[in-house]
């Protein structure tokens, strides 16, 4: 590939009626990387993906996909798994995959071979002659995933690939995505599951209310959102309350509080000017510990934090970004807000 960016988006805006779905978006997706599109429901993820796919066209701005002006010119090199799952209900699985492969430019006999190989790979060998409507939801999703990668595209775009899968199939899909990644393909996937995003992504792109919120390497973003805290778990023989007392007495911590879900795990926020290195040394001197580590920002926390900092959802200014109580409340709000349909 001539350019190092698989996708370049410059100043793209898309409105539906009066609603601005994507506003003045700039984005580069590097070739060969796994990029996660995150953002709450209705943020503009699917709209952005559909514009990349040239299914809809931007009102203004420029877009280049695999070095071409539009995805139409490089459709065969792109694999796409839409958010809404769709298969021909009455069509048999084998012929369906063969048909899709042929539509994407794979030759007749090769198309059938590939379809067979893929079905075997995901453990659906027996479904070749079954009608799509006879498959379970998870099986259908696997078939759909195959339909998006069967023609060995350079760029794979997966809209919510993990939704509705059980843990076993989630793992299988993660392996399949990873395999595509190792084969040097550029992968974009949108997701609500921050855990999957953290596990798979090199790059993160976050969009909220049509605007880019985050864009960069996952490691950088996580570093940028360093919560400046230690996670301490005292040895089992020590009472949690006495451990809290000991740690509070130590200088260098702004606050010590037990984890919501696991009360024996203590979260110690660093005071201004104290390095984590120093703080760890002090903890070790004061307390026998079972576990001691720097708290790492979870993508989920960053996600919620970013939305919070936009002022949406009525967040009071100056509130601690990592205040767990506030976070829980916000999660709830987001969850209810997220139930409105995606446009």
């Amino acid at each position: 590939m001539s350019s190092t960016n698989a996708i370049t988006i410059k100043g793209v805006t898309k409105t539906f009626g009066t609603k601005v779905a994507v506003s003045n978006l700039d984005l580069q997706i590097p070739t060969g990387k796994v990029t996660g599109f995150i953002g709450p429901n209705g943020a503009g993820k699917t709209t952005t993906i559909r514009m990349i796919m040239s299914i809809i066209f931007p009102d203004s701005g420029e877009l280049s996909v695999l070095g071409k002006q539009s995805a139409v010119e490089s459709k065969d090199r792109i694999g796409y798994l839409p958010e809404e799952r769709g298969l021909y209900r009455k069509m048999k699985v084998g012929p369906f995959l063969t048909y899709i492969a042929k539509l994407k430019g794979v030759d007749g006999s090769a198309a059938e071979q590939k379809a067979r190989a893929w079905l075997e790979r995901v453990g659906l060998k027996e479904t070749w002659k079954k009608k799509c409507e006879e498959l379970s939801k998870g099986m259908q999703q696997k078939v759909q995933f195959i339909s998006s990668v069967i023609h060995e595209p350079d760029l794979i775009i997966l809209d919510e690939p993990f939704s509705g899968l059980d843990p076993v199939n989630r793992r299988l899909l993660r392996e399949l995505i990873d395999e595509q990644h190792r084969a040097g393909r550029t992968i974009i996937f949108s997701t609500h599951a921050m855990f999957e995003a953290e596990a798979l992504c090199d790059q993160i792109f976050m969009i909220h209310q049509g605007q880019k919120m985050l864009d960069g390497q996952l490691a950088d973003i996580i570093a940028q959102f360093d919560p400046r805290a230690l996670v301490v778990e005292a040895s089992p023989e020590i009472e949690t309350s006495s451990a809290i007392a000991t740690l509070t007495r130590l200088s260098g911590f702004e606050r010590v509080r037990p984890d919501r879900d696991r009360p024996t795990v203590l979260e110690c926020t660093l005071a201004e000017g104290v390095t984590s290195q120093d703080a760890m040394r002090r903890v070790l001197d004061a307390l026998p510990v079972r576990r001691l580590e720097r708290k790492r920002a979870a993508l989920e926390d960053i996600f919620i934090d970013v939305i919070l900092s936009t002022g949406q959802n009525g967040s009071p200014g100056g509130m601690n970004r990592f205040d767990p109580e506030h976070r829980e409340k916000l999660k709830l709000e987001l969850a209810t807000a997220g139930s409105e349909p995606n446009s």
Partner: protein
Amino acid sequence: MKRTFLVAWREFTSVVLTRGFLLGVLMVPVIAAISIGAIFLMRNQQAPRAVGEVAIVDRTGLLTDAIRKQFSAEGQKAEGAETTAKINQQLDKLPLDDAQKAQIKNQTAAQVENASDKSDLNVTIIQPGDLEATKEQIKNAKIKVSDTEGEARPVIALADLVPGLITPNEAGVYEGFKLFTAPKLSFEVQRRIENNISRAIVDVRIATDARVKASGMDAGALKAMLASPRAETITVSTAGETKSIGPLRMLIPMAFMALMLISVMTSGQYLMTTVVEEKSSRVMEVLLSAVSPMQLMVGKILGHMAVGLSILLVYGSLGVVGLLISAMMDLVSPLTLVLLVVYFLIAFFTIASLMAAIGSAVNEMREAQTLLTPVMMLIMLPWLLWMPIQRAPNSMFSTVLSFVPGVNPFVMVIRLGGEESIPTWQIPASIGVGLLAVVFSAWAAAKVFRIGVLMYGKPPNFKTLVKWVRMA
């Protein structure tokens, strides 16, 4: 282009290779053929029989012998021969070749030959005083089709014959008679009894009439004189003289139109259904990531055109085979058949484009109904127009309709099927109008389709569709 054909091929096979289609479309002619065959077979069967007594109250005292003669075995055979003669006369009018006619005639003749020597119906003469008692018997009579050993035949009918049947009143008018029959007696047997008695009455009238006797006229000659003459109608045309086939002629324009409507409607419906299905099952996006909306729409339309053409060919060729068998092929010229296909294509593309557009705009079949109403009206119109156009293919009304986009392929097909030839210039001109309609509807459909396929939510109304068409 290759992808358009891939789409077209899938559409075609996904419809044609389903059990529903094969049963629905291909089985109809088979079933029709079987039922026509069955009717022919059944015609060769004998009429329903019944054995029993026919009671007669002969108040004239003259009819007994004549009626007995009619109901005797010989009378029965004579009756059969007469019926055969009538059938043969009708048969001569049918457009079948001589060998076929001869075969049918031989069959019926053989049946008359083999008729039973024993009469099915006996005549019992009863006294006027027994009338009511006999009625009671008839009321409870069980109809039997053959004799049972040791059991008497039931009384199944009772005729009350009054003197006025033989002797007319002053004005020269004869009276009628009453025939009482058993409740479950079949219509054919009832008719036979009626006819036998009527014949006997006429025979006796002639035999006893003083005027006939005075003139010395033969009874047979008099009967022959009264029979209606048979007519042989021959159509004289430039092609020569042919036997006229009357009502069949009228059916051909109807058949043409029905053929076209069935194929256009069936394939158009299939097209719309698949578009709606792809949209509602969200396969649409997968497809659109591989082909453009235009390729998809054109592919679908071509695929379903093939479906429509196969229906047209299956039914059409059956019709042609039928005409060939009955030696009536000169009713339909090959050019007419070619034009039928041309007009089919025009009608199909016009209507299919609209169907594709409607399918793309809605989320499910239910929502399509409102948008479909105008299209349906367009399609139903030819059914209403068939009669007037068929009667006067070159009237102002028919000519004007031949240039109204949408209906004109149907109108032209009705006109072409008729006997009157239509001005030659009207054929290319109407095809031209049809092509313009095709271009327009395809253009509008393409615009709606491109926007519609990815629109979910509230189904658009007509105003919205027009807006989409106007959008660049």
